[in-house]
């Protein structure tokens, strides 16, 4: 268009560049913590991006998305515990398990809509949480330590911080790219049409539920990948990753960054987690500052940070 300066693009480019160069900064400044923090941020950004596919583009407010973090994580953890250390087995299993869970939960939940959909996805995630707590063989409540990270036959060493960070980043960019293709495809148009007006879409000949379910499964599978990465990052997986507050965190990241925008969830994850980190250093009661701050952004920046930037560029 005619804008000489588009704030959204500028911020996105800056963010991508910063994420790419972060290990370099960490190396030069000796700030190892930055790399640790941002590895976690990148993984959760991936989870938020996957949630955005159903929430932002598909209009399905899932309040149980953290379940996939747990499923992906436990797939890696349990297989490692049982002596199967190969990532070539662990990761496909993590993705398949997440897809299967999404298929079952989606088929049941998508019969409802609105608040009921939120509640039922929440209920299923809590169920997954309690099931994981009951896995006595795999640590139960205390969680499961992953003694050895996924092994990719020398292709990439996940125990190397930098390599692992770039793997996470590649997964994030890969997923964002995939989402970009999907939302502009025929399938994506249908899903966004359903968000906008389901009755109309049925009337012009689209079986709504089928498309929503497929979208739900794609999103869950992507988040399962984040789960596999997270378990490798923390060398640990516990029921806590599936707790409803974690699902809430993911929703906040998406809304904060901008629902239905490609890079919104990534920006949301970075801002949310960096703020959390900084504020928790200042005070134990960081949530007291964080809460109102989020409220302000959501109230005044409809469409989240991306929405704010969009308005800013238009002047």
């Amino acid at each position, binding site marked *: 268009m005619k804008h000489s300066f588009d704030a959204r693009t500028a911020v996105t480019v800056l963010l991508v560049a910063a994420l790419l160069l972060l290990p370099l900064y960490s190396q030069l400044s000796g700030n190892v913590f930055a790399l640790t923090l941002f590895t976690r941020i990148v993984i959760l950004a991936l989870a938020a991006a996957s949630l955005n596919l159903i929430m932002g583009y598909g209009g399905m407010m899932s309040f149980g998305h953290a379940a996939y973090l747990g499923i992906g994580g436990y797939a890696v953890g349990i297989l490692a515990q049982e002596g199967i250390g190969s990532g070539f087995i662990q990761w496909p299993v993590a993705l398949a398990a997440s897809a299967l869970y999404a298929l079952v939960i989606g088929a049941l939940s998508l019969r409802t809509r609105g608040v009921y959909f939120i509640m039922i996805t929440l209920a299923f995630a809590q169920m997954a949480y309690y099931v994981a707590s009951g896995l006595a063989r795999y640590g139960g409540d205390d969680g499961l330590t992953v003694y050895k990270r996924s092994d990719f036959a020398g292709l990439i060493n996940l125990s190397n911080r930098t390599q692992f960070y770039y793997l996470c980043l590649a997964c994030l960019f890969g997923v964002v790219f995939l989402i970009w293709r999907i939302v502009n495809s025929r399938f994506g148009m249908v899903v966004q049409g359903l968000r906008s*007006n389901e009755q109309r879409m049925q009337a012009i000949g689209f079986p709504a539920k089928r498309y929503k379910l497929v979208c739900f499964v794609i999103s869950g599978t992507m988040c399962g990948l984040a789960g596999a990465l997270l378990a490798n990052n923390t060398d640990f997986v516990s029921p806590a990753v599936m707790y409803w507050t974690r699902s809430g965190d993911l929703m906040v990241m998406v809304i904060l960054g901008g629902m239905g925008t490609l890079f919104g969830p990534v920006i949301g994850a970075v801002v949310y987690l960096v703020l959390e980190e900084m504020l928790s250093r200042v005070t134990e009661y960081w949530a007291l500052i964080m809460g109102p701050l989020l409220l302000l952004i959501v109230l005044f920046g409809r469409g989240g940070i991306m929405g704010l930037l969009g308005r800013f560029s238009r002047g």
Partner: protein
Amino acid sequence: MADPLLRVKDLVRRFGGITATDHVTLDVAQGELHAIIGPNGAGKTTLISQLTGHLMPDSGSIFLGGEDISRLAAWRRSALGLARSFQITSLLMDFTAADNVALAAQAHHGHSFSFWRNARRESGLRQAAQAALERVGLGHRADVLVSRLSHGEQRELELAVALATKPQLLLLDEPMAGLGVTESARMVKLLQELRKEVTIVLVEHDMDAVFALADRISVLVYGRVIASDVPAAIRQNEEVKRAYLGDQHVVTAHV
């Protein structure tokens, strides 16, 4: 003699104690423009919604081209060539006019489990959309967001969306609702063109339009069809006059 394109037999739909559709029987011949009129609350939209599958009848059956569609989901009926416009404009407000129509074309052109190719660059869909938009006079508004179109333009877009599904039967639920005089006249002209190509069931309050357009008229009162005949006969029908007592002039004015 050929079967009618649409046959409705003994259709019943109740809401609690109210019988909104009371044993409605109706035939619409191929190529006909069949108007359904009736006072407010006569059950016209309820009837249309059962025809399109947005509402399931309690009993009775609906045949389209001889096929029983009474229990089919809305999207399946659309695939069989049934299209509708909504009384209250129902479009994808955050999409452009062209996107709305292209999606309708997409629904009837191959499958939509395609995740990679950019749908907005599919020339087949875009051309179909543009053609349908031109048809209703919206060709120059293709790239405007629906929420920015005027009410009249949205009504025309409703029609373009329905047309893009290449229907055999077009169900129009008060296409004139909320239109001004000139807009209404344009819509009538448009319908006069369309009726040459497609069978139309028209629900409308605008009696001028109905009598100008219809081949046959069915009158619905309290969910029952009290008369179904050519316009001239409907005008003379005593029962119809009685039903319209309050608005009697509406019907008789055209005698």
